[in-house]
């Protein structure tokens, strides 16, 4: 069904599509259950053109903690986890916007700049305890609201997405 020419063309086409992949580094594959999928403009992959991560991989990144007041809890809460910037760096993300998606398909666009400007954390521990899905887990993007009044606006409250499951870099 394929002519030699068409086969050759196909190979060429495949080569062309694979060319970027040749540059992408192959990251280590997750051992446990995948809880975060990163796609889009990234330089590191470990599952097709995506980068998937389990809790252990996130835990392996440098951990940061801060305690802040939030609209969702009556008391200040301590959040612990890797910086969003470090997570994006792990996937060698190069886009300007991160489209974050939750388990319930809630999606919000976070400018990549936010990760540079603020100490945005992808929290995996709340008050030093893992977060179940029932309680906004397993991952929760949190801005350090107490550090600046500019952050205490609906814009940043909206960007604080919980039950995070995927990041699409655009």
């Amino acid at each position: 069904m394929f002519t030699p020419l068409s086969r050759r063309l196909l190979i060429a086409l495949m080569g062309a599509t694979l060319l970027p992949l040749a540059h992408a580094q192959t990251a280590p594959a997750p051992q446990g259950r995948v809880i975060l999928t990163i796609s889009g403009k990234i330089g590191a992959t470990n599952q097709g053109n995506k980068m998937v991560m389990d809790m252990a991989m996130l835990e392996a990144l440098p951990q940061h903690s801060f305690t802040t007041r939030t609209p969702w809890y009556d008391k200040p809460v301590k959040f612990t986890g890797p910086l969003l910037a470090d997570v994006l760096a792990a996937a060698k993300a190069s886009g300007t916007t991160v489209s974050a998606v939750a388990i319930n398909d809630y999606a919000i666009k976070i400018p990549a700049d936010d990760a540079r400007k603020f100490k945005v954390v992808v929290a995996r521990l709340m008050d030093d305890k893992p977060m179940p899905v029932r309680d906004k887990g397993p991952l929760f993007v949190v801005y350090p609201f107490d550090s600046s009044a500019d952050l205490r606006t609906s814009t940043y409250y909206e960007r604080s997405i919980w039950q995070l499951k995927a990041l699409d870099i655009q």
Partner: protein
Amino acid sequence: MNSEPTGLARWQPRHWAAAVGAALMVTLTPLTYIQWDQLQTMKSLKTNQVDSLLWAAYQLEREASRLTYLLHDSVSHPYQKVTGDELVERYEVFASRLPLLTRIPRRDLIENEAAYTAAVQGVTAFLEKYDPVFADPQALEQAAGTRAAIADELESLEKSLAELTREANRATSRFLDERNAQLQEQSLLVVGLAAVQTVVLLGFLWLLVTHLRRQLAQTDRLRKLSRELETARDVAEAANHGKSVFLANMSHEIRTPFQGVLGMLNLLEETGLSGQQRDYVQTARDSAQHLLGVLNDILDVSTMESGTLRLSVAPVELRHVAQDVEGLMRAAAREKGLDLAVHVDRALPSWVMADATRVRQILFNLLGNGVKFTNKGRVQALIEPIPSVPDGVRITVSDTGMGMDEATVGQLFTRFYQADNSLRRRIGGTGLGLEISRNLARMMGGDIEVRSALGEGSTFTVTLRLPATEAPANAATLTGDAPKRAARRLKVLVAEDHPINLKYMNILLEQMGHDAVFCENGQEALQLLETHLFDVVLLDYHMPVLDGLATTQAIRALPGPAGQIKVILVTADVVNDTRKRAREVGVDEFASKPLQADDLKQALMRCGLLQGEDSTDTGHADPGITATDLPGVAPVSLGGAGADVEPLTPSQWDALVPARTADAGILVDSESYVEILAMMPADTHQELLGTLFDPPEGTVHALMKDLAAGDGPRIAYNAHKLKGTAMLMGFRGIVRTAQQIEKLATDGHVRDAQALADELMDTSLRTREALRDFETPVAP
């Protein structure tokens, strides 16, 4: 017209500040509160997102639907593998939505609704029931029947969840309505408060405008008042000035006849008076002298007040001034048994620029006071330079008198104040003396201070600024008391209507060695000037027919040398305006009235008619033409040409006085006679005595002859003539007798007059006898 400010007009700036502040507080505080409240509300809206209530209810409902859908899917499409993990995850997501709703900050908006309670209880029960089931994903994967049952149960919940969403929507609407109502209420409140504030501020504005208007009106009134006051002050000052001028003129007018009264009293005393009469005359004369002093003081004060008093500054030898005053005060001091000492410091410059009359006046006043108020001890004056002050001269007058307490010292320089009221009658004085002295001292750049304690005497310190000067070339002529014979015999025309002054001036001019022709008024003076040559005219300021100024004007209008004659105006008027006017009409010089020899002499010198004389007065005078050479003019000159007679020194005076015999004292007034002796050369004197006593032409002999003949009119004429000459010479005895004879003859009692012939002869002989006492010390 202007009442006390009332109400707002009385408000001080701090009242205004407080009122405006209070008004702003009342209106702005609620406004601020409302704004703050709104800010807080917005803040809470930001953090407690109310809309999330609706969102949470909707999400719960939606997740229930998705879970139901997935469960149904897993049952009805077994070939599409739905894993247990997927089911669990969906279940957990659903479960996670419940606390979001129950723990939402504004759940109070919905908590009490039945729909909420039903939905939450339903979901909670569902979760409690199936949590164990979803805890085991593998078992769930196998149990399709369980999944169907769960789906059914979940579907039955969805109705209440949908109701919950609607209720959440209603609650959110209610909240928004409530918030809207709150905002509206607040807006209304803000508008109301703004209105109140506007009203209050407008009120204040109105008050302020009213206040300002009232103040402007008040300022206008004040300005008007101030203008009126200024006018009133000008009027008052003009009136005061007018009064001062009037007072000065009146004092002058009173003073002139007063000189007459004094002169006449003096003459009266010389007549044959009984002891009691003499006492009366003495009292009258003392009173008159006191009155004259008062008049002089008033004149001084009024000229000071009218601002017309000017100091006439000339080189003055202070030592002489001091000696003058000392000489004048000596008699009074001696009478009270006081020591009087005037000491002039050697360091004092001999000549200073000063108004001698005024310096003398100050010194006289202070020494006079000292003598008046001291009963025992001494009065002394020290005149010395003040080294620390340029041109400074200090005169210290101290006494050992009664002294004064502090209150008295404080009021001492006040007008009409006298140290002791009870003394007023005894001691007299106007109470103006110190005020005058102080004003004079101040005009001389100094002041007077007083230091006194009760019973310890008083010390008055006068400081003056009198610049030192060179002795003038004609120094000798400017000092000395005794009138000196003129170096040049002048032909003087005197216009003087007052008989006493005429007499006085007659004697004075004789003493000075000039020839005088008298007339009664300006008109006569003009007629004489047209026909005769004179060196100088003395015009009285006040004269009938033609007064001094009018006469001067007429003289200046005369043709030829007569119009160029020197005119000296004799006036008591010290008001400088008068002098200015006089200068304008052509008056050359002034002499004060009563005329003083010194004063007249200086006036003549200033006219260039006399040269400065040597103090020795060796008389190189040109005899000139006497008045007798002038036909038709009565010869009045009694004095001869310049001769070598020196004025008597005080010591010579003292030498003369003890020489008087008791008889001489009655017959001859030694003072008058010594004066006559002093001012006449010996030969003239002898000649004068000859006109009285020498037979057959002597007046005494002529009268004796008339008495013998019984010729009434002749007796009266010669008796009058004898009386006049005797009065001039101070022959009291002859004056008395001649007066009696004249009176009797005039009254027609010739026989009675004749009876006095012997007495006349006797008196004249005894008078001549008495005169011998005076001759020895006078002879050179």
